[in-house]
């Protein structure tokens, strides 16, 4: 960076002719997040409303892990076969409502069926053998009992509650209770929007999705905590004599961490996106792609909300109390 010729005469800020990006990268971004919180609030409420409406109207599309059922993944077929061949094979076992997909140029297949143990003692392993006979490949079976999804979910909900209690305690001790409230409100926002998007797009919810949502909680909090850390540091310099309102200082702190927030989100989302792309092209790697999709959505929402949602709530709580603590 060549500096010498401008050293003597720095241009005044108001006439800054640099682009927004340049200002952002050089720490001079001054977006008024807090001052415009009314706009953000309306936007946030609209998004939340759409999410809740989607959830109520469309509902969630649960995977066989929640409803019970079997999935078969066939690989490396040596015989020619069609989806009809497989459907006929399944029909011999009385399975008529299977979803059959042929993949990998006709050498692979993915089949999901509802719970077949209900069908008069049909055995998923026998079905797998029959498919292997048709295709000449290897078949992997995954059968999920109807209670498994509930067991996983109830454990997850318990984990969530414990986690929330611990996090509220930690943030209260480390920072203050208002930040804990703001962080948890932001968290609720992230989860509702993520789940709402699942309902809206009709994505399948599997236990992996539940895990991912739990991880989003951690991530969203992480992001919020980093922002709050900076706000605490900056507002800590405020004294009783200072005339600058909390909101203004908080807003400056937000702008200061903006590059970090964006960069972090980008570097977090990149690996998740590659997981999503690779996972989507892989047979039977539902765990990977389910995880990646929910993480992808949640991380994006989490970054947005730690700036747009968390800090305005915090400032609102603070300025109600009218004291700098």
């Amino acid at each position: 960076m060549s500096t010498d010729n401008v050293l003597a005469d720095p241009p005044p800020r108001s006439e800054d002719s640099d682009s927004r990006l340049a200002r952002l990268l050089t720490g001079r971004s001054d977006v008024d997040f807090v001052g415009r919180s009314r706009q953000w609030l309306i936007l946030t409420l609209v998004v939340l409303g759409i999410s809740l409406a989607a959830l109520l109207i469309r509902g969630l599309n649960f995977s066989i892990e929640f409803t019970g059922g079997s999935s078969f993944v066939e690989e490396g077929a040596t015989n020619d076969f069609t989806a009809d061949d497989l459907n006929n094979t399944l029909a011999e076992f009385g399975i008529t409502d299977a979803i059959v997909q042929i993949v990998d140029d006709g050498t692979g297949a993915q089949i999901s069926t509802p719970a077949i143990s209900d069908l008069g003692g049909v055995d998923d392993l026998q079905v797998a053998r029959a498919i292997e006979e048709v295709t000449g490949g290897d078949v992997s079976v995954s059968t999920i009992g109807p209670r498994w999804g509930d067991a996983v979910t109830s454990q997850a909900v318990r984990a969530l509650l414990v986690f929330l209690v611990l996090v509220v305690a930690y943030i209260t001790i480390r920072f203050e209770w208002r930040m804990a409230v703001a962080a948890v409100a932001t968290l609720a926002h992230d989860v509702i929007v993520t789940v709402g998007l699942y309902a809206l797009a009709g994505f399948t919810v599997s236990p992996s999705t539940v895990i991912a949502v739990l991880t989003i909680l951690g991530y969203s909090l992480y992001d919020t905590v980093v922002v709050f850390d900076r706000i605490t540091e900056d507002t800590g310099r405020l004294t009783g004599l200072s005339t600058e309102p909390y909101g203004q200082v908080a807003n400056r702190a937000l702008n200061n961490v903006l590059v970090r927030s964006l960069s972090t989100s980008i570097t977090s989302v990149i690996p998740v996106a590659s997981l999503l792309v690779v996972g989507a092209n892989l047979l039977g790697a539902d765990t990977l792609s389910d995880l990646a999709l929910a993480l992808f959505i949640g991380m994006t929402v989490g970054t947005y909300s730690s700036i747009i949602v968390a800090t305005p709530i915090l400032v609102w709580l603070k300025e109600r109390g009218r004291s700098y603590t």
Partner: protein
Amino acid sequence: MSQGRLTALIVTFLVFLVAMWAWIAVADLSPRLGLDLQGGVSANLLPAPGQGEIDEELLDQTVSTIRERVDALGVAEPDIARQGDTIQVQLPGVADQEQARDIIGRTAQLQFRPVIGQLPPGSVSGGDEPSDAPTDDGSETPDDGASQTPDDAASEAPTASATASGQTCDQRNDLSVPDPGQEVVLCLRGVDDQGEDLPRELWTQLRLGPAEVTGSDLADAQAQLDPNSLGQAWSTLLEFDGEGAQAFQEVTGRLACLQGPQRGLAIVLDNIVEQAPPVAPQVACEQGIAGGSAVVEARTEGEARDLALVLKAGALPIQLDFGTFQTVSPTLGQDSLDAGLLAGLLGLVLVAIYLIVLYRGMGLAAVLELLLFGATVFGLIIVLGETIGFTLTLAGIAGVIVSIGIAADSSIIYRERYRDEVRAGRTIRTAADHAFTKAFRTNLTGNTVSFLAAVVLYLLAVGPVRGFAFTLGLSTLVDTLLFSTFTRGAFGLIARNAKLANAPLMGLRSGVTSEQLAAATVTGPKGRSTSGKPRRKVKGGGRR
């Protein structure tokens, strides 16, 4: 912090990393792969509903019963573990999936059978006797009171046996529950003086009569301490229900008329004789033990508790449901592993490009940090697989991939902080040091939250979540470790090196406007007059 100490930080970290990988290379270790990555059978079992409260001890006994069965199946490296109420069974490379499913899902069967005779360990014709002599002579001698007279068994006619009596105990791998109405030859669990299991080839075989009492006749079993014994004598109390009490009295009355091993009443779980305690000498012939309860003396508290659990597992069968049952072909496992590694590599490369674009030379240092982070996490996964048996699953790989973001974030926080400090008018060296202090605090706060999430998930969740939570938590720790050693040291040293600090490619001066650098000149804390001249930045160690 002096240059020397910064170097020491880097060296400490690198020594740790090199030592770990040296061990991995020398011991030729590789990660323990989960079922989803190497192929095999995996199942999660849940207690069926409507069985009331199921305590942990009973689940633990169920786990060890399943483990016994799986051992008999001859699976290499089976992994059977209890996670909360769920029992997870992982069997790599199982040939007969039907059989595997059959044996892991079955309820434990408890039978009481009279001892007809005894076969020595190894073969029918006598041999080494396990050296566990009976140690106490109470009203009933526990387990091995019957194992002293091998000749009886050899003299019995072998023709009546229902199962293969020619085999030794380590060869027997039939998993069928013996027919209650038939005579059978079964193996008696051999234990040493400490109560540890002896190798199977040292176990003796017993010829047993038909089952006289079964698990369903038993109402309860618990370990108890004899109140008159000053806290020494442990025993197991058996309580039978109405029908059971009668059957038990009948069989003990009949056995009381006999002598030697034939006084023994074998307690058989599935197809292993757990103990064969003889009926006590004072029990009268044809009268038996009345009252619906009996006591089996034990040498130690542990022995008494173990027997109580064995009896309960059979008496109060925990009906298990399959939560999941999965078979993974080795090809699918390999594909998943490849995909996971590919996704990780792809993510790493893209993040590296981003960091270099954003931070130039300092970004390159950040990429080095990322690579070291990857090497540390991967090394630890291998080491933990070896030491505590951590198994890497697909979900675990996802955890590592997600943590790439966390690791990159630490580098980013540091660099953004550094720029802030320079913008606030610090010199490059002091900016680097101040930025570390602040960034490290932020790193600790953020990572505490992530680590908390990982720990809670690991402890409370079931199934694949745990693998994910484990690697995520591990990565968080590695991130903080790396940040406080290598990252701090490397950044500090670069900032102290005039050539590097001023090289445009290092980017230590990028991201800051000329205006801000000028401000640094005027308001710099130490009143420096210029910021562009290299030599001023090299004060740190006082030598260079």
